[in-house]
């Protein structure tokens, strides 16, 4: 995160976080990749420990900011990493708060920190430029800079010609970023983990375009080859503002080209936001069907309903009857609106030899909170070896 942070948004988010924890002061530090240091970005109050001011810079070692739950006993500071996507971009240090309990409070705190990281995130275009600059040769960078400038002048033809050339110019390898883009108007993270270099370049062009970028993305999709189409779909996640560019999403979801389907739905909040309920449900079901984790569909839990739950359970039954495996990530989603028979099935999957199934089933049962399931959960807990499953079961039974 190298761009200048708007001080007010940072201060506001920090204050909110301090209130959540009940602390007296706190500071936000942002990482400087090149120099491996954390730099002070914002501070509220003082360090209670010695009443001294916050250091403006501190070393950013491998584990410096990773001590998430260093619960204070004697009003010692609490350090929480700032995560954008899955990338650590800095740290928050909170002085002398209340005791932070395990469980929900920790979850709330980490949610607040995620919100803070989103508030501090750069705009999508500079973020993408930064990601690409660190990974592509100088010549490709120069070319990209020139076409981004043309896009920013509203030069539609330049974008239309640069779009197909992107793979040759900047490469087609995975981008390899654990980070996420944040739209100022959406407060949603758009994960970059499945993106390729050419996706990032194409989306940067759409972000830069001075004009109707949504309509342009639609047009580029229908005139594009497979890779261009993926870029246009990922672009809609960043520049899509209305349902008017749903055609490409629908086209991609109808397709059986896994790469295209993935670009339309996985980590793509555009599809999740604008697809009507029935189409959204079918898209989620098809994701499960083609082997894309439905957990990668943004908002799948908030949009889940009884009908989706029924469809997923029916799909599971169909797979079981055919003697085929079932994707474990359907359980927590199906549990949002449990249908008849789900709890019993989940109790069965608590005994599944695959850890992922036990994790999914335990999460789902915790979510449903059916008292009839408690004996089965306690019984499993007594024999469970896996730490994650144990933790989820303990929390669910607490």
């Amino acid at each position, binding site marked *: 995160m190298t761009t200048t942070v708007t001080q007010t948004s940072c201060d506001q988010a920090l204050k909110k976080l301090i209130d959540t924890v009940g602390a007296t002061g706190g500071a936000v530090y942002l990482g400087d990749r090149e120099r491996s240091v954390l730099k002070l970005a914002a501070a509220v109050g003082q360090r209670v420990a010695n009443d001294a001011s916050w250091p403006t810079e501190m070393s950013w070692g491998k584990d410096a900011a990773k001590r998430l739950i260093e619960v204070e006993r004697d009003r010692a500071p609490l350090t929480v990493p700032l995560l954008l996507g899955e990338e650590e971009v800095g740290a928050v240090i909170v002085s002398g708060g209340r005791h932070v309990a395990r469980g929900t409070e920790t979850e709330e705190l980490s949610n607040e920190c995620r919100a803070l990281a989103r508030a501090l995130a750069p705009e999508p275009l500079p973020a993408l430029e930064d990601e690409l600059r660190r990974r592509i040769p100088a010549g490709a960078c120069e070319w990209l800079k020139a076409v981004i400038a043309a896009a920013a002048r509203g030069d539609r*033809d330049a974008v*239309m*010609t*640069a*779009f*197909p*050339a992107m*793979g*040759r110019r900047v490469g087609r390898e995975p981008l390899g970023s654990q980070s996420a883009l944040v739209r100022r108007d959406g407060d949603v993270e758009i994960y970059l983990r499945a993106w390729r270099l050419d996706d990032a370049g194409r989306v940067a062009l759409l972000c830069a375009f001075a004009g109707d970028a949504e309509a342009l993305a639609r047009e580029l999709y229908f*005139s594009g*080859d*497979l*890779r261009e189409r993926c870029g246009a779909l990922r672009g809609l996640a960043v520049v899509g503002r209305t349902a008017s560019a749903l055609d490409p999403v629908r086209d991609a979801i*109808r*397709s*059986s*080209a*896994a790469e*295209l389907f993935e670009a339309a739905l996985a980590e793509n909040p555009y599809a999740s936001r604008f697809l009507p309920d029935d189409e959204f449900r079918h898209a989620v079901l098809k994701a499960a069907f083609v082997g894309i984790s439905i957990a990668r569909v943004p908002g799948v839990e908030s949009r889940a309903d009884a009908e989706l739950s029924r469809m997923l359970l029916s799909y599971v039954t169909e797979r079981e009857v055919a003697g085929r495996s079932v994707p474990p990530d359907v359980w927590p989603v199906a549990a949002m609106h449990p249908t008849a028979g789900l709890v019993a099935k989940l109790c069965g999957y608590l005994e599944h030899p695959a850890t992922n199934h036990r994790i999914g089933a335990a999460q789902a049962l915790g979510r449903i909170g059916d008292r009839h399931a408690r004996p089965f959960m306690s019984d499993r807990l007594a024999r469970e070896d896996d730490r994650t499953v144990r933790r989820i079961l303990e929390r669910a039974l607490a």
Partner: protein
Amino acid sequence: MRMFEPHAHMLSRVTDDYEQMALAGIVAVLEPAFWLGQPRTSVGSFVDYFDAIIGWERFRAEQFGMRHYCTISLNPKEANDDRFNEDVLRLLPRYLEKDGVLGVGEIGFDDITPREERFLAAQLELARAHDLPALVHTPHRDKVRGVERTLAIMREVNFPPERVLIDHNTEQTVPLVIDTGCTMGFSIYPDTKMDEPRMVEILKTWGTDRMVINSAADWGKSDPLKIPKTVNLMRQKGMPEHEIEKVVWHNPVSFYAKSGRLDLRELDTPVTPSGQLFQGNSILRGPRA
């Protein structure tokens, strides 16, 4: 011996052809954009065709371990059709930037009309703008005159001859082209154009510099195995292996490498068919793993 087929309209061929070509040693094929036999009636038909040869046909070829490239253009015959010729020209820039497009072609003459001249010149300009070589078709009728006009237009627009492949040459046209610096293509056909014995004679007479051979296989009576068949005859007639390899590999590869888009390491790596579907379609039949 590995071979590069620099001119075959694979869209009109069956999968048996791919299989036979691969078995015979052809590892890469270039598909020039051309007409469809049946005249098109609208620009949309070109869009679908271009999409097919940059996507679907490449996918089909890969199922048989073959690399597939193409050239894109408004073909000479349909340059005469005012229902869409201007629209197609406007379509070209975005297709010329697509992956796997190694040149502008086939362009050139069919009936040698003023329209054909205009679209030939315009497309040479496009080749220059997109830094691509050009594949030039020469007419079946009045071929010598067609070659002369082609060379004249190249000079008029100052297009570098080393970036032009003039195709479908015969004994009559070789003397016109041999000293220009253009690469020369020969289409070996069952009945017309050129056959294997004549081809070997031409190579013996004129040498192998900048000479390439192809099958120009399409929907008519043609034979996608004409390159390996000609190779057989070259061997029988005592041509050295390195000369043969020059004609069927090094010459076509180095010509299309001028596009800057032919990844030579990729050419040396065997294609492994992914078994994936292409936009929902598969040409694989029967049970799949």
